[in-house]
């Protein structure tokens, strides 16, 4: 069937797609372009320079913020993924689980609440019980809103899986723990990986909660960048943003690569 007569095609759609992708990527390109500007003012181009990258990499506050973000994201990912995995195993595999629907809604609750409400909730809670450790506050709050993001891909993977292998394993006298470790876990690994990945990215990206709880001395990367933007746009900010863009794109590509080996993207 030639393209012209294919009834599924609409005229002008390809042109629209080109414009759409330009719109999608232009802002990112603009940020990267101006990071090489030698001038102190972002929008006044005076020449090519890499000095803002040197300044960014030399910036101790920035590096501290990166470390805080990575540590919180790592802790939140481990806890959220573990909690989500256990919940998913019960909710998908458990027989005769009472209040299954309610439990599922509770696990997914952070998804349907605007994050600002969640952040106000934990702020008041922590202030009421007099909990002042900024780092721990963030780690706990991040675990809460990362859990459903870890839960959904794991549940999807479990639902798409037959019980055959686990039954075979039980027939071969493996106990439940061995079956889980040697059969179930390897089979759902792509789902667990996707969930952990999503949780990590959501935590790294979080601004609203981290900003609201930012009193105990734990400043994450987005909150630090927000502070810089408030002071005015500089090419150093663009250099920092470009570094973040490059790292995110590398992580995204890696995730796709690993997912591609473990099953297609739409599987999870």
């Amino acid at each position, binding site marked *: 069937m030639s393209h012209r007569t294919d009834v599924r095609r609409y005229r002008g759609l390809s042109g629209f797609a080109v414009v759409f992708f330009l719109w999608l990527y232009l*802002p990112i390109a603009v940020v990267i372009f101006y990071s090489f500007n030698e001038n102190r003012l972002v929008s006044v181009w005076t020449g090519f320079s890499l000095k803002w990258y040197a300044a960014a990499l030399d910036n101790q506050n920035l590096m501290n913020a990166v470390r805080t973000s990575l540590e919180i994201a790592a802790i939140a990912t481990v806890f959220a993924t573990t909690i989500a995995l256990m919940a998913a195993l019960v909710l998908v595999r458990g027989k005769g689980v009472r209040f299954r629907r309610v439990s599922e809604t509770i696990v997914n609750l952070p998804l349907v609440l605007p994050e600002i*409400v969640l952040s106000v909730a934990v702020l008041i809670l922590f202030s009421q019980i007099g909990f002042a450790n900024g780092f721990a506050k963030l780690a706990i709050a991040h675990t809460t809103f990362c859990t*459903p993001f870890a839960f959904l891909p794991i549940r999807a993977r479990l639902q798409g899986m037959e019980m055959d292998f686990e039954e075979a394993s039980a027939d071969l006298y493996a106990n439940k723990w061995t079956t889980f470790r040697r059969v179930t876990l390897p089979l759902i690994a792509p789902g667990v990986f996707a969930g952990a990945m999503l949780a990590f990215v959501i935590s790294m990206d979080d*601004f609203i909660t981290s900003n*609201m709880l930012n009193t105990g001395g734990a400043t994450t990367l*987005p909150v630090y960048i927000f502070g810089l933007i408030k002071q005015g746009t500089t090419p150093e900010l663009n250099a920092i943003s470009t570094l973040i863009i490059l790292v995110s794109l590398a992580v995204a590509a890696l995730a796709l690569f690993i997912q591609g080996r473990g099953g297609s993207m739409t599987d999870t």
Partner: protein
Amino acid sequence: MRDFRFWGLLPAHVLMALTLIVPILIIVAVSFSTRGAYGGFEFTFTTDAYRQILFNEGWTGELEFNPQYLYIIGRTVLLACCTTFLCMALAFPIAYWITLQGHKARVILLFAVTLPFWVSMIVRVYAWLIILGNDGVIEKGLRLTGLVDDLPSLLFNNGAMLAGMVYSYIPLMILPVFASIEKLDPALIEASHDLHGSRWVTLRRIILPLCWPGLVAGAILVFVPCLGAVLEPVLLGGGKILMMGNLIQMQFGGARNWPFGASIAIVLMCLVMVFLLLNGLRATRKAMEEMA
């Protein structure tokens, strides 16, 4: 191991109860309290915080109607609706176009659509600050054409916030819409054509109705975070044009009026609940699933 049913769910329930459900009950309590002398709150049952949304207290204690906060609530709902609608209008043709491509191209294009979403939200909003700002990319581009000399500022208005929010949330619309179009049987489109339905009739009568669940799922995913947006109003709205998100944030930051902030948060939560109920719980659950 039989009791795994119990203790497997326990951590999730304890986490959500302690960090979400109990704190939300506390928010409700705070919204009926009075503000403390040094910030915080003191619990004495009063509806003052809710009254403050609608009325100003005059010098002599008389109440006068003050629509200022109603405007903010109205603006928030309106901007969230516009963002959702624009995301639909942009995402549907793109998702449809992607489904027409070959298998390999489809995977790559879907990846390309979601790729910007992996980049930090704050960086993406910052990009729009540079584009729309004074001496920004748009102003420079227009000056090059020689048509304009000096533009009125493109930043710090509703349009700038809308642009930022559409850009931020569109991948959340594309994925569920794509999933629903992909499930569409091409034979139905051909059948419509054989029955002398034009392309537009087919689109309106066949394709759109069948893809409606995907559009609704996408609308939930976009609308809810839009109602609670904070970054866009603060950076692109300049902190002067408020939305509910940054109004709440201000009460817990500089303004130190916790009961008022809590009452706005409750109003926001009620808006979300009304929206979700209107869409039905099934569509909501579907939206959650599509997200994974």
